[in-house]
């Protein structure tokens, strides 16, 4: 074994996976070469010492918040996917067509057709659509990542960043609705209500905020929600506003605002 070959085998030697014949050749070489012997001794010592850096598994655990953050984001993601699921009417078409559509010949023809259409559209757009899509995905990723952060200021940045995302983005919409309903910080909830204005054309937003109005524990968020409903002329909010107006538990300012809201919508 040459000095060069020793270097090639060192990684296997350190990991303890060098075969017996190679170990014997290596030992022979080390008996004759002081430089290699010194190098391998130093590297083995460092490699072994790295073991000292590996504490007991219990001493190096992530915090419990990591788990709760993961499950929150998983739930938000699932809600986003459900919101983006195709409408039932379209499903029926696919069910009907599933028989012949699943045949290999159809799939091949369909793929070829899509390829031709794709190439044509790609040429027509001159590649800008791909880039736009990438930019949109990046913005979506940044928004959703920020909205999951532990610090409220980061989540506020996420809400702010959501303004750069397309209003058809259901994942960001779901994350904003989640923030309005569940965020522990009132400022984040208020900012999320404002950010939802660009999604006000979506019926799911109005329905969800109507429910949120009844559940909110912060009068400030309730006031912001009533403003939102009046601005969007959401008449479906009338029963909720009436309930708030009647309830003895409602904050005085919210009551007055609900009365005003009812007068605007009725």
């Amino acid at each position, binding site marked *: 074994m040459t000095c060069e070959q020793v270097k*090639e085998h060192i*990684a296997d030697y350190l990991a303890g996976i060098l075969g017996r014949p190679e170990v014997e050749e290596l030992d022979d070489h080390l008996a004759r070469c002081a430089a290699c012997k010194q190098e391998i001794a130093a590297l083995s010592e460092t490699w072994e010492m*790295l073991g000292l850096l590996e504490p007991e598994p219990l001493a190096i655990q992530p915090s419990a918040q990591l788990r709760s*953050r*993961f499950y929150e*984001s998983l739930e938000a993601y699932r809600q986003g996917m459900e919101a983006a699921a195709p409408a039932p009417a379209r499903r029926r078409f696919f069910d009907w067509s599933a028989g012949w559509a699943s045949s290999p010949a159809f799939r091949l023809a369909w793929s070829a057709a899509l390829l031709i259409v794709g190439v044509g559209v790609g040429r027509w757009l001159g590649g800008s659509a791909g880039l736009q899509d990438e930019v949109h995905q990046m913005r979506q990723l940044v928004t959703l990542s920020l909205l999951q952060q532990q610090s409220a200021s980061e989540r506020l940045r996420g809400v702010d960043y959501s303004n750069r995302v397309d209003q058809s983005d259901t994942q960001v919409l779901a994350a904003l609705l989640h923030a309005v309903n569940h965020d522990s910080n009132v400022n984040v909830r208020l900012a999320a209500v404002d950010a939802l204005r660009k999604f006000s054309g979506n019926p799911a937003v109005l329905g969800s905020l109507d429910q949120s109005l009844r559940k909110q524990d912060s009068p400030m968020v309730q006031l912001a929600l009533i403003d939102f409903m009046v601005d969007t002329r959401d008449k479906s909010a009338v029963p909720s506003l009436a309930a708030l107006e009647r309830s003895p538990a409602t904050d005085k300012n919210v009551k007055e605002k609900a009365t005003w809201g009812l007068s605007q919508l009725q």
Partner: protein
Amino acid sequence: MPETRADNVLMQKVRDGDLAKMAVLFERHHRPLYRYFLRLTGNREFSEDLVQDVYFRMMKYRHTYRDGHPFTSWMYQVARNAHVDSAQKRKGETPFEEQPEPASAAPDPSEILLRRQDVGLLRRALAALPVEKREVLVLARFQNLKYDQIADILACDVGSVKVRVYRAIKALSRIFFELAGEKAS
């Protein structure tokens, strides 16, 4: 079913829309992943953010998971990208912080003291190592991955991984003995 194969099947289900299975993959892998990031960044908070980011990316890019590809390798590929992106964002910061001391079973107090000194120097040496060298050592020494798995993660051949391990441990050794020499002199 071996655990690795079970992981692959779970990830296929996630890819096909059964997102709830991601929770099982989280429970199985988030701790080693956290330790991987902690070794790379030395910072608990960054490491937790990175773990969160990896699971988010795996959900978002689940359609890129290919049948039969080992899930662990794919997860570490995603983890590497997440780490590179976050390192670019935090350019200029020095994130290394003290990590927990290992529980030592050695009964000799002088040996414990010596080890603590070594551990301190070794941590400093590891922190001083360029990130690509630190990464390959973390994968090989702490994550208990085989060289062929690391080759898959780093998108290179096994021979290149062995060369990188050799160069990384050599660089670490040099820095460690330099620091030890400074301390002794």
